[in-house]
């Protein structure tokens, strides 16, 4: 008999079966994306849902070593963009969040409202004037331009996540440090920053996934040539290899693996980040 007392205890067999059926239906596209990596183009067209027989690694090899493949260059571009963008967002987001978490005046409320606007702003709204600005200051077509924009765009999100956590850090800790003669910067670096580590993981997972998967900003700011990232690379390859589906499936798998590994390594922080939002609104 199921009742509320058995909740979160051993699930009934019916629930297990329903859960498996529902998730199997949901996961059909993922299954198709995975099995077709290991098939020839003929097999993909004839039997897209069948298991790979014969099993081939040719598609993966073509993407990894093919003369026309830009995969490694694009992977490098993605890392060159994602890592500094994440680092910058963490540094600037945590300092702004520290201020927002502690400040109480009307000025702080105004700054908070201005940042809130950034949370709901679609970046399509900014791209036209942004590309004009970047062209004017000579950063259009450069990694630096894209990285600076990523940081600026994600600072509001990071600041709010940090601010929410800073509010839970006991103020007495900082007072004690101040009594011991520590200046504000030192208090922040030595007392607050070590406590922010789990929050930083939450910020990194969201911002990392967003920037890795972004394709419009790199396409507009860097252009389609040597500056393509793995994500823009897929978009460009869809036009280029439009009949070579095996290569396309292999390319999508290789492009998704790094971010999936990162996502699942930190997934408990992802859930925690959302959970703190879910309980504190």
């Amino acid at each position, binding site marked *: 008999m199921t009742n*509320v007392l058995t909740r*979160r205890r051993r699930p009934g067999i019916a629930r297990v079966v329903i859960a498996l059926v*529902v998730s199997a239906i949901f996961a059909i596209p993922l299954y198709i994306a995975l099995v077709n990596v290991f098939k020839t183009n003929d097999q993909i067209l004839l039997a897209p849902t069948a298991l790979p027989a014969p099993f081939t690694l040719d598609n993966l090899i073509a993407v990894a070593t093919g003369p026309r493949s830009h995969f490694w260059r694009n992977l490098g571009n993605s890392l060159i963009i994602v890592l500094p963008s994440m680092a910058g967002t963490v540094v600037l987001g945590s300092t702004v969040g*520290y201020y927002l978490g502690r*400040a109480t005046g009307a000025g702080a409320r105004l700054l908070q409202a201005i940042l809130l606007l950034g949370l709901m702003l679609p970046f399509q*709204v900014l791209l036209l004037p942004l590309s004009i600005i970047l062209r004017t200051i000579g950063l259009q077509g450069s990694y630096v331009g894209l990285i600076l924009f990523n940081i600026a765009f994600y600072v509001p999100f990071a600041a709010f996540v940090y601010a929410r956590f800073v509010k839970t850090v006991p103020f007495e800790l900082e007072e004690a440090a101040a009594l011991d003669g520590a200046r504000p910067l030192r208090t*922040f670096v030595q007392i607050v920053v070590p406590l922010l580590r789990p929050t930083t993981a939450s910020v990194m997972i969201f911002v990392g996934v967003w920037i890795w*998967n972004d394709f419009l900003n790199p396409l507009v700011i860097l252009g389609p040539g040597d500056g393509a990232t793995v994500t823009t690379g897929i978009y460009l390859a869809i036009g280029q290899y439009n009949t070579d589906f095996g290569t396309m499936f292999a390319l999508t798998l290789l492009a*998704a693996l790094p971010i999936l590994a990162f996502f*699942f390594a930190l997934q408990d922080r992802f859930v925690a980040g959302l959970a703190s939002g879910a309980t504190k609104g």
Partner: protein
Amino acid sequence: MTLSTSASAVSRASARGRRKPRPLATWRFPFAIPGFVFYGGLVLVPLVLSFFYSFTDRSLLRPDASFVGFDNYLRLLSDPSFLGTFGFTSVLTVVNLVLVNAVGLMVAVLLDKVGRVFFAVRMAFFVPVALSGVIVAFIWSRILTDNGVLNSTLRALGLGDLAQSWLGTSFTAQASVVVVTAWQALGLCIVVYLAGLQTVPRELLDSARIDGCGPVGSFANVTWPLLAPSLTINATLLLINGFKTYDIPVVMTGTGPGGATSTVATEVIRVGFSLNRVGLASAMAIIMLAVVAFITVVIVGLLQRREVSN
């Protein structure tokens, strides 16, 4: 009765635990300066420029531009193709909101159990959350294209009559974009509801059972009201992200056939960068921002009032 007293006791206890920071806090302002310089220079300045351009006939091709008042806005509001785009974007957003919330809540309740099977199943729902819209659109385009997985499966099952050009006719292409965006959004919605379900105290459910509530009654009287913050988050995320939909129509349908699956976001980029009509595209962008901001303020206001009244 017992429920409401214990719930308010919980909230009283948490209110007592919270303390107000002291005014000493103002000297922390320098910490906010670098972040605001970035945000101001690369987000607020473009935003103001976008607003300014929307009242001009500015083009990327020539440096001079003249002030045209509300011409761009009036033109958009009387342009059937933009109104069609706006209509499709709105329908997509609302269907996503209702569909994803309903399915997401059901799946979250289904999966709110411990055990290896449930952990693995939850992971399957999370995968699309971490995937790029470009990848999701590519996978689904192989399913929905004329000689794709869906049609070949229908024919193999003897349902060949149902096979059709899913991405080739307006209605089915629009429905496809809605389904695919919902498929990608579902995982995040489930995570938020699962996190919300973890916060429902066992004691409240136990006392509901003692008061004679069945599973449905305890869900309606205990769980659902306590999920109010999760609903607020999901509704806000789904509305904002729905209205911003870009990657999936661009990659899966090329916004076709005949622009049937174009969204406001795809039109901003097409009109601005392909047609070089910065003024007109900026007016679209400002309309888009106004709608998103309006939705957010109204929905968050309504739903948070509901949270408080609980």
